């Protein structure tokens, strides 16, 4: 028969870990922090390098089209940085909020991922076909190259097989992602319902 006293059980629960375990935790935390710092550093350096390269290209060839492309690249870079910062802040808010808030945000994020994956599944094959069509129709040189290439039987077969393999692999990957995401979504929704159920059953009759 177990002595069910939460204070006593709390003492059992909070037993001091042995020094080796504590040392392992410290090493683990230190490694995590080091990796995170490197990731931050790489992120900053990569953004600076891209910005510098774009700037150099624009300065070495200050024409309207390079200015336009350079400006667009810088804007895209800024947009990516802002978006990733916003995502990080959202994630932090969900971690420091209540469990239900965290679950709500996780559900929204997972729904967005599911939608995106479905869109990719529907859109990537037509996009590849469109890309080939574009290469044939618009760019004479590319079309010439493609025509030359496809006139060689082995090259034609290799290209068809390559594209077919790529499309199949992408389809399998996307279907797998959709299935996993759907299961994760179901699980998150069930969890949220469990929390709501607790709240509802706490309400006075």
């Amino acid at each position: 028969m177990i002595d069910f006293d939460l204070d006593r059980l709390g003492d059992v629960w909070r037993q001091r870990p042995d020094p080796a375990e504590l040392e392992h935790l410290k090493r683990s935390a230190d490694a995590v922090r080091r990796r995170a710092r490197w990731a931050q550093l790489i992120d900053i350096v990569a953004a600076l390098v891209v910005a510098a390269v774009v700037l150099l290209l624009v300065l070495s060839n200050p024409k309207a089209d390079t200015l336009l492309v350079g400006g667009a690249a810088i804007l895209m870079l800024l947009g990516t940085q802002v978006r990733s910062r916003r995502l990080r802040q959202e994630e932090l808010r969900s971690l420091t909020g209540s469990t239900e808030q965290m679950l709500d945000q996780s559900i929204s994020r997972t729904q967005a991922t599911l939608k995106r994956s479905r869109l990719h599944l529907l859109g990537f094959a037509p996009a590849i076909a469109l890309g080939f069509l574009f290469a044939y129709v618009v760019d004479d040189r590319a079309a010439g190259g493609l025509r030359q290439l496809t006139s060689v039987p082995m090259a034609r077969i290799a290209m068809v097989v390559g594209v077919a393999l790529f499309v199949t692999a992408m389809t399998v990957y996307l279907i797998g992602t959709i299935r996993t995401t759907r299961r994760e979504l179901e699980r998150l929704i069930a969890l949220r319902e469990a929390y709501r159920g607790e709240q509802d059953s706490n309400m006075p009759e």
Partner: protein
Amino acid sequence: MARAVEQLEAITEPAGTLNGETPPFERIVADHGPLISRIAMSYEADPALREDLTQQIFLAVWQALPSFRADASLKTFIARIAQNRAISFVARQVRLPPTAEMPELIESDDPDPEQSAIDASERRMLLEATRRLPLPQREVIILVLEGFSYAEIADMLDIAPNALALRLSRAKAALKKMLEQAA
């Protein structure tokens, strides 16, 4: 490059560290590492996944530290992050958590090995029973076992004190039943 990382360290160290509000990360790990480890253990039984979860919690705590305000205790702040990270981790595992065994974390130089063995066995039973509780109840029980006050728990979970009392009484009943069955 290592120097750059050190300089970055000074920039990215939580703001509070500089004015003495938040202790350095190493100190936080030394003080609250065991709490993080216990929370990870009560949500994930598989040792490899548990290690992964523990690292994810450390990372989340490190990233969230700059947003820490002294309106709550640091321990509460860390426990909230650890619980939320653990719950989202469990939700992401597209399978039921296995009930693999936990490593023993008992003092090796305990003066009373017999008592130590009894405690270890009781702790193992407690952990296994806790893992089988539904998440809303598990969350409450873990926080009680970690020594948080009811007011702190209600605040962390953003629920009314009477709702907490009801949830806790259900969790205690379920836990008691499981422990009695295990014993």
